[in-house]
């Protein structure tokens, strides 16, 4: 009867030195991998990822800057537009004011001219009336003298009569008006 230890394993029976050698040699490789090779590769990968992320960050920063500049430009543009429309409004208002002032001034001037003209006319009229009154008085006196046959020119009474007559005429005039 054979026990399990007596079974002939043939090529499946390991030689112990080979078993140990396999483990030791592999252990050496494992050690070098863990201490040198894998850290070197992982470090490179991390640096690469960092470089790529850095590039992305830089691009994002540039984009943000551009967006800020655009925003600023837009604000300035809007400000300029506001300013321009304000200036336009001002100009319009100012123009309207100027027109109103000119109109007022012109009106004033016209009023003044009219008043002056009226005053002049009045003065001329008064002067004409007085002149007329004197002439009419003279004419009437000489006419009456011719009619009566004697000169009334020097006569004080006659002059008073004429004045009274004209005053009556004026009074009548005033009543009619």
């Amino acid at each position, binding site marked *: 009867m054979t026990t399990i230890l007596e079974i002939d394993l043939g090529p499946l029976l390991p030689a112990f030195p080979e078993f140990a050698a396999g483990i030791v040699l592999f252990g050496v490789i494992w050690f070098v991998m863990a201490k040198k090779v894998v850290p070197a590769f992982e470090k*490179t990968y991390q*640096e690469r990822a960092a470089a790529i992320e850095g590039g992305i960050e830089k691009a994002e920063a540039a984009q943000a800057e551009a967006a800020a500049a655009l925003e600023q430009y837009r604000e300035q543009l809007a400000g300029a537009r506001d300013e321009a429309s304000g200036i336009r409004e001002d100009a319009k208002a100012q123009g309207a004011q100027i027109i109103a002032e000119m109109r007022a001034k012109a009106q004033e001037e016209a009023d003044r001219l009219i008043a002056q003209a009226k005053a002049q006319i009045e003065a001329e009229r008064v002067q004409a009336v007085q002149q007329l009154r004197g002439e009419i008085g003279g004419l009437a006196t000489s006419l009456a003298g011719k009619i009566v046959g004697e000169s009334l020119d020097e006569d004080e009474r006659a002059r008073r009569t004429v004045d009274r007559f004209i005053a009556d005429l004026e009074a009548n005039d005033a009543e009619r008006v």
Partner: protein
Amino acid sequence: MGPLGLIIPMEGGGADDAHHWPPGVHSFDPKPFFPDAGMDWLNTYLLQAVIATVLVIGVWLWFAKDQRVVPGFKQWIGEQLYNLVRNGIGREALGPDYRRFTPYLVALFSFILVNNLFGQFFLSMFPTFSRVGYAYGLALLSWLLYNGVGIAKHGLGGYLKLMTMPKGVPGPLYAIIIPLEILSNFIVRPITLALRLFANLFAGHLVVIVFVVGGSMLLENADFLYKIAGGASLLMAFPIFGLELFIGALQAYIFTVLTAQYVASSLAEDH
């Protein structure tokens, strides 16, 4: 064996030809450097395992040297290989936890790959992992790793519960499930891990021996028809080499992927 025997330098040869044909388990016997000194462990397989170790470490240190943010050609190649394991295996299987297992997985993949490619390298012509001891060694380390991280995360009780008592199983069925899960997760996993690697390379190397040694023996035969068959056999050896290269790379990948999967299952919150 004649001149063609030179292309498979580690297959013995010379006066031992009769002893070595047909190829079999004895073709994988170690060839000690000092056969009479009682130091059988100091053999060509150990030498090539050491060379593989030096090679793997050297190449990775070379790749890791002078790394820049913008990689040159050398660094780019290194990063492709590194990412194959780090992202393609580690991150795929382990999710956010993958970083601390990257050294183990990279070491595992490159060590197995280089040793497997030694099966087709003209100076060695022998895949190290067709010696089962090396495969057991790596499987044991992977077993310790996935159980270790599981216990570290869930505690011993929580880990055993996670691994042996899947949720949603009706109570009585646990009588069957628990022994099955113990068998599958703690015993079958490491054994299949080791044997899958070992058996693929063992069988592949055996096929190569049959085609090359058998072909050259036929070619040296006086019979003309045997010479034709021998030539055809040697020609066939080249597609077999190609296939073995593929299998060697595939097995390195599978061993690494499965280790990552086992670690992931140990770290899982739910089975």
